[in-house]
Every structure is written in C-alpha cells, then in structure tokens.
C-alpha cells in the first residue's frame, strides 16, 4: 500500500524538482532513491520539495542523507525545501535526526534553488 507520491519535474536550467506528497516510509524509500539516481544519471541537481509531505520515518531520512550528503562529490548538489508551514510531524523528525547537519535544508523553493546555484558557483 503506497501512501506517498513522488513526481519528478523539470525545474528549469538549475535543477530538477522531486515533489513528494503524502506519507512516506519503507514502501516509497526505494522509489525516492531511484528518483535521485535518475536525476543524477542526467547530471541534474535536485531540489526536493517536501511542502506537501504528511509523514516520514527513518527510512526516508536515510534515503535523503545517502543521496544528498555534501561529501557525495561525484553527484550533483541536492537541497531540501521544508517550509515552516510543512507538517509538524515532518519537521519534528527532521529536527530530532539532525538532518540539516547532513544536507542543505531551506525554508522556501527559491532559497533551495539559490543554495543549488551557490553550490554550482563554488
């Protein structure tokens, strides 16, 4: 039973956008990793829009960290968008796991794209 949805959208020149919706767990973590790989195979940076995510657990945190950690130097940059109005449950998991210690997390899509652009300038 899949309770979450992941869409890949072309975000223009700077990055692809993985838009996650609903509840995500073990049943969608592989799909998330595959979506990252598809973007990386095309050498596209990734912005993950988690605005409409209602639930994540540690399998999703692990997939995000594995795919988005800055020391994956061979892969294009990744930034997460988790706005202040995102699900409190999601923000709580992000806080408790210290996810922002591992990857770029921003509060708006504009800021996430900005972080990707800065990364590309370095």
């Amino acid at each position, binding site marked *: *039973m*899949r*309770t979450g949805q992941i869409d890949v959208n072309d975000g223009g020149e700077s990055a692809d956008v993985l838009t996650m919706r609903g*509840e995500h*767990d*073990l*049943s969608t*973590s592989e799909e998330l990793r595959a979506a990252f790989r598809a973007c990386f195979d095309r050498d596209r940076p990734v912005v993950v829009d988690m605005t409409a995510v209602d*639930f994540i*657990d*540690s*399998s999703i*945190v*692990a997939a995000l*960290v*594995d795919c988005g*950690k800055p*020391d994956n130097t061979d892969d294009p940059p990744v930034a997460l968008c988790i706005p202040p109005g995102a699900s*409190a*449950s999601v*923000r*709580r*998991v992000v*806080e*408790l*796991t*210290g996810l922002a*210690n*591992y990857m770029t997390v921003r509060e708006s899509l504009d800021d996430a794209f900005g972080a990707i652009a800065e990364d590309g300038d370095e």
Partner: protein
Amino acid sequence: MSESGVEGGIRLVVPATTDSVAIARQLVAGVGDALGLGEFEVADLKLITSEAASNVVRHAYPDDAPEGTGERDGVVEICVSGDSEKISVTVRDDGFGFALAQPSGESLGLGIPLMASVAERLELRVREGGGVELVAEIAVGERRRSREEQTPEQRDREELGEIGGDLAQVTVEGELALQPILARLIGICALRGGLTVDQLADTLIVSDALSAGADVWAGEAMVTLAEGEDERQAALTIGPLVEGGGQKLIDGMEIPGVGSLRKLADDLRVEVRNGDAPGEAGEYLTMLVAAPSDD
C-alpha cells in the same frame, strides 16, 4: 480527550511486508483520533508504529535465517491500549528479531533512537522462543498538563524536539539486544554531534566495546541519550553497572593496533547514583560528544 479508553486494547496482526507498515500506522492514528489525542501525540504514535513495524519487516524474517531462530514468513502484531493518561503501543514478532541485526544503510539505525525520543518509555525484550517485543508508552495526560502551563512559544519548541530533558531512554531486557540498540543510540548521539555519516562507522566500534562485557551490568541495561551541558553536546549514559564496571568498560575501549576509542568522545565520566527506583542504583558511564565548532 475522550473519557473512554482502550484498556482492553486493539490488536492487529498483518503479514510482515512493507505494505503492512502503512496499515499499522493508520490503525494507531485512528485509535489516537478516536481518543481525541492532539496532533503531536497522534504523530508520535504513527512514528513509533512505523519504525517498529519497519524493523520487523526488515529484520525479523530474513530469507537466510538459521534453522530454529524463527519463522521465515511471518507476521507483525500491533496492540494499542490506553486511557486519558497514557497510550501504549506494543509491536511484536516471532521471528529472528533485529537483536542480531546491525544498523543498515536502509535506516542508518535511526529507528530506535527516534522512537525513544518521542516516547516517554521504550522497552525492548527478546522473547522466549524467538522474536522481539517492543513496548512504547506516550504519557498523554502528563503532556496535556504540561502544555497547559507553557507559553505558545515553549510549546512549539518542545513539540519540535528542540528542548526538554532526555532525548531518548531505552531499557533493554536480554543482553542479545544491547549491542544493536547501543549502536543506534550512539549513532544518533554522533548525528546530533554533527559528525559525518562516515564517522558513524566509528561509533559502531564504540558500541561493540561498551556492550562487550555482560558482567559489568548491575541490572536491566538502561541507555539514555540527553543534551549535554550545552546544546552542542550530546550525552550518552549507560548503567546501572557494578562497582568498577565503568572503568572496566573504559579499559575495554583500548583496542590493540587501533588505539583508544576514547578519542571518539570528548569526555568520559563515571558516577555513582542511588537511583530513583529499585534496580537503578549503581555506576553510570557517560560519554559526551560535542558538535564541531563553526569557527
């Protein structure tokens, strides 16, 4: 909060498959809603259930399980019970259990620390005859009263996990389960300390060293993860240990050819506590890990 409770409990038995994780989660969410729990209590129940059921799906019934260690195709059982004061979620399997499993890349070993962070009580037992039972308790009554005394700003920060006392406390019954649980708690200690994912591998070595000596424990093993003296520090405390047990564990961190694992910690302390309850008195060893400075 409804006056009605679910003291008799609601029980769900489903196949240990990925599809069942969401089903289990929806069940507890439904119970929480029916009891009139707040948004965060329901969210915590869902997180605990999702993590515990995922553990069973990942680890309880491996295809290569040795003979006699459990069923290869099994089920996960979820029970929810409680009243206006506390809600308990019990998740059990009769399989191989995650006791012998190491944290994997699929979850980074974050599941147990996360559950322990949001539950007021978390107990793990290796069941006789195979399998693991996990019991998590959420003190909904205490939380409700505490919220009523807080300002809106304090409430928001605490609900997001930014402030508060212990970050995680786990009681372990059965020494088999100790090492993987310690590994996960040390892992989250390192995460909060801002160490890199690769450095997490070092923490597995520390957990091996700390859980190696079964003869140092003075009772049921209790592992607590809390903020240190400042918010940049994480403090992992284990005990109760027998007299001299703390030093014995520290001595055990000297690995021939590798050196001392003590360098992974910023500080190691041994203290004697009388304990608040029977069985809690003894020595406690605390490991402090600090986040790297931004300078």
